[in-house]
């Protein structure tokens, strides 16, 4: 199924829902190895994204995603604000005036987003950040022309839980040194929710369209 403006909105709505439901979980994860605000930050940001989507209408996926980026940059703060914000900004720029995206085009856009996160945050794979969901996940699917969304969801979940065993080198958890091991990275969890939302949206779309 191609991604459209409408399904992009569904994706973001689902992401918002999941963030709100998991707000306390994200906060708990961040309390364990950070400063305990990741749930609050993401919840505030997505609430604002929903307001943006309600108050404006977007003709192209690129504009929509850029609008989301600006809201995230302006409302989330912390480390995750600039990271998600930059990711969406670059994704939006890549997508441009398109009204539909094939799986391949979507993967390319997501890859742009991943690069933006790495550029902004300077973290590499294995440093226990959201990068440990984005990079290996997109790597796994980089050759696909048709994504099996169930597989992607499962893979994203694996990457997310995989951060548990890592020793943090970037972000606040790095200050904990070895004590960071044994906890899932909160940003990895919110990134998982992002990909899970996307996968579920795409699967619903496929089911509806037969």
């Amino acid at each position, binding site marked *: 199924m191609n991604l459209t403006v409408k399904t992009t909105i569904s994706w973001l709505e689902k992401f918002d829902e999941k963030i709100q439901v998991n707000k306390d979980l994200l906060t708990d994860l961040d309390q364990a190895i950070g*400063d305990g605000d990741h749930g609050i*930050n993401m919840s505030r940001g997505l609430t604002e994204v929903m307001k943006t989507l309600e108050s404006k209408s977007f003709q192209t996926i690129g504009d929509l995603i850029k609008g989301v980026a600006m809201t995230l940059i*302006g409302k989330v*703060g912390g480390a995750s*604000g600039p*990271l998600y914000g930059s990711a969406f900004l670059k994704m939006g720029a890549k997508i441009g005036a398109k009204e539909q995206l094939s799986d391949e085009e979507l993967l390319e856009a997501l890859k742009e987003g991943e690069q933006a996160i790495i550029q902004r945050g300077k973290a590499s794979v294995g440093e226990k950040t959201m990068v440990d969901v984005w990079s290996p996940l997109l790597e796994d699917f980089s050759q696909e022309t048709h994504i099996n969304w169930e597989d992607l969801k499962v893979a994203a979940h694996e990457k997310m839980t995989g951060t548990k065993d890592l020793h943090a080198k970037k972000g*606040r958890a790095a200050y904990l040194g070895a004590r960071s091991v044994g906890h899932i990275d909160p940003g990895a969890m919110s990134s998982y929710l992002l990909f899970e939302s996307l996968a579920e949206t795409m699967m619903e779309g496929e089911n509806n369209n037969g």
Partner: protein
Amino acid sequence: MKKILNDVNAVVDEMLDGMVAAHPKELKRVEGTTVVVRADAPVKGKVGIVSGGGSGHEPAHGGFVGKGMLDGAVAGEVFTSPTPDQVFEAIKAVDGGEGVLLVIKNYTGDVMNFEMAGELAEAEGIKVKQVVVNDDVAVEDSSFTSGRRGIAGTVFVHKIAGAMAESGASLDEVEAVANKVIKNVKSMGMSLSPCTVPAAGKPGFTLAENEMEIGTGIHGEPGVERTEVLPASDIVKTLFAKVDDDLQLTSGEEVAVMINGLGSTPQMELYIMNHTLSKLLKEKDLNVTETIVGEWMTSLEMAGASISVLRMDEQLKELLAAPANTVAFKR
């Protein structure tokens, strides 16, 4: 959670409102933002200095806005770096034509958000430089990680860079002296109890009745070691040893020191810490030019304290002693 507040989502806005209402001669708020600036900002012909970060560290950073220290302070949500647009507003509000120095505490979020703001400002033709404070020796200093955190030593950067800017120095000169302070100031803290972010509603960590944490960050980040509660003298020795280890202070040198309460530690206990610290400094034959005791960079209502030591030279001595007239820090 027991706090004096109305709406957990409005704490920063109401705080800033109450602050500006309390100090109308000293401060004004950039309308529609979380930025407070000097009442007379922008000061023409003077380098502007902007700092800030998450809220919950009061009096940092708004309390340090005024003649001789900061021109503007940007308040994020509690313990959350402010967003680039807010920092950008502060830069615009304080730029007096000579450029603006951003004093950033070394946290990934702060660095990224301030950096993005700097990019926005430069795109509008405002000269911007930034310095990143990383005084917390509790954290390993490694180029493979994000490095050390910025904690109470930041106040020395505010004071000294502020005095330099006030003297009419250029942006490069102000940046240089700020970096000199950053290179020469080291800090380390400890905590006896956690604090609660209003919107989180529960403490950031827990400590048993007989436990304390060494090296806790000012956002309730867990520290580097948990021990039984030590006597004040041992606490001070532990913190000072780590700081000294890094600064490698030698006999006859001059230092300024700060004992900073994290929120709910009574001044009595801070002075009891200085009872030991002043002796340690004397034993090492160090000359203390100034001892600053109080709450400067807090962590909401956390119980605990940090020690900062700044290696002095003639320039730093003069700038630290120069007049400052802010709500929280007067000289």
